[in-house]
């Protein structure tokens, strides 16, 4: 943007969108400190809702369950996603490649009610024939993994495409066997993408409502399901407190991650520069 009019427009537009994005978040945080139980009528500053949160068994249990499912989902999605990304990146021709690519990408956009319903009906049919699985942790984990795998594949695949193939080829030329090439060369290079994919799928799983609602069973109520049922009934200060804590954790996480990433970038750039200098 060279002109000052251009600059003003650009800054104004970006600011407007940022205000749009952040206003609700700030409102959530501010009103979590509202002494009045009528969430939107300010009644003074108070921490009482945070104290009540500590006693809220439903939320705490839901949170613990969601955390466990999210952790498991992160791991399974990353494993499957990396395998799928490697497949798409490396193997250009194999029977069913178009179908494979379609199946990997579709959960990204497929409405969750469809994913949830179809998985539930399948699991119920399987249960009728084989007697298992019971709906609960494992079934929610399965649904979240399907979704997470799609996201993980996108993240890892884009990193694989950016990565220079010459490094792997060099390793092969030097005598490394395929498995060694993968573990010693490829994996370290995509490790950051794998970490981002893990965090992304972890967050997705922690936040998921619809798939969890379809696939949960008695005794396996996740935090989002609890929050959703409370939100449907109206405004509740407990939701505000959960929101504030979430924003706090996410902000710290993103901030820490970006510091770590920029440090790793600088270190890598220095190493690459040093390597090229030695070749001269």
């Amino acid at each position, binding site marked *: 943007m060279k002109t000052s009019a251009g600059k003003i427009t*650009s*800054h104004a*537009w970006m600011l407007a*969108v*940022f205000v*749009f994005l*952040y206003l*609700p*978040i700030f409102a*959530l945080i501010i009103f979590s400190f509202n002494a009045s139980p*009528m969430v*939107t*009528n300010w009644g003074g500053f108070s921490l009482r809702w945070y104290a009540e949160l500590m006693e809220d068994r439903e939320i705490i249990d839901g949170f613990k369950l969601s955390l466990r499912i999210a952790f498991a989902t992160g791991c399974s999605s990353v494993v499957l996603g990396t395998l*799928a990304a*490697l*497949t798409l990146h*490396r193997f*250009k021709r*194999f029977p*069913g490649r*178009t179908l*494979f*690519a*379609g*199946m990997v990408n*579709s959960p990204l*956009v*497929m*409405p*969750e*009610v*469809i994913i949830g*319903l*179809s*998985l539930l*009906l399948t699991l119920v*049919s399987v249960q009728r024939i084989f007697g298992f699985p019971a709906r609960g942790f494992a079934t929610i984990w*399965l649904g979240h993994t399907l979704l997470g*795998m799609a996201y993980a594949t996108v993240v890892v*695949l884009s990193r694989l*495409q950016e990565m220079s*193939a010459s490094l792997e080829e060099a390793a*092969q030329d030097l005598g490394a*066997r*395929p498995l060694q090439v993968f573990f010693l060369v490829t994996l370290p290079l995509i490790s950051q993408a794998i970490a981002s994919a893990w965090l992304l799928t972890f967050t997705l799983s922690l*936040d998921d409502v*619809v798939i969890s609602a379809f696939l949960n069973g008695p005794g396996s109520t996740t935090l*989002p399901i609890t929050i*959703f049922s409370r*939100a*449907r009934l109206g*405004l509740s200060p407990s939701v*505000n407190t*959960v929101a504030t804590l*979430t*924003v706090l954790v*996410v902000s710290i*996480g*993103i*901030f820490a991650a970006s510091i770590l990433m920029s440090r790793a970038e600088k270190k890598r750039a220095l190493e690459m520069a040093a390597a090229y200098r030695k070749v001269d």
Partner: protein
Amino acid sequence: MATANRNPFSLHSKFTGAWGRNAVISVPMVFLLLVFLLPFLVVFKISLSEMDAVFFREILSWRDDVVVLTLKYGNYISLVQDSLYFNAYLSSLQIAAITTLVCLFLAYPFAYFMARSPANRRPALLMLVMLPFWTSFLLRVYAWKMLLADAGVFNNAAMALGLVSEPIKMMNTPFSLVLGMVYTYVPFMILPLYANLVKMDLRLLEAALDLGATPWQAFWRITVPLSKSGIIAGSMLVFIPCVGEFVIPDLLGGPETLMIGHVLWDEFFSNNDWPMAASVAVVMVGLIIIPLALFNKYQAESTGGGRK
């Protein structure tokens, strides 16, 4: 698959041996076939069955040495005859289209300005865009309930300031629904657009300006066409999930906003009519199959780039 060299770790086999290659391909493939494709077939089958108190009746049954295949297509007839479903499908498509256009309108200039900002500022800007994305969407949609309610933040502020004497009805309207949808999906539009615009070769724009184009002309005839794949990717990322969205209509929508995702949910959870819910799902997939194919095509093109 037989190969000349059977040793999976042989130095002479092409990159990975057949054993390794098959393992890498088949693990995700089998997972997807069982967890993604198979359920679609199950849904289709169940949409043709009948609800039997607690469970659905099997479509294949046999008695007296006769195998009977019972296909109840009545569910689909209801879908066509009952105007509720037709209206729900139509309004879902309309709302998804409006949401996509509004997102595009907000996101394109934003992504453009972000891509043209000084390079050292971009990571911070990106981080600021991602932060809402990483915060639970459920909580952020709930926040709009707080803001738009009749006794909500906006109305309280407006009345306190004397701007209005009565609360403005903003909640549970098509306005609040579209607002909530745009709010949730705008990062999905910003990111592909930004990824596309930031990689654009600025020299093309310089060349156009040198050849006498005004900045406005250069924008419409060079930048926009080059960002086409970003526009399509972003639009599909918004449009397709919006059609089947349930949570946002449930929290922010109202009696005038009928969304097919909500209808499906009600058929399943409230009416306990699984075959009906299944047929609603089948038709929903039919509606989004073309945008879905478009999305897959653009994904394939972007991944077909292969190695550098």
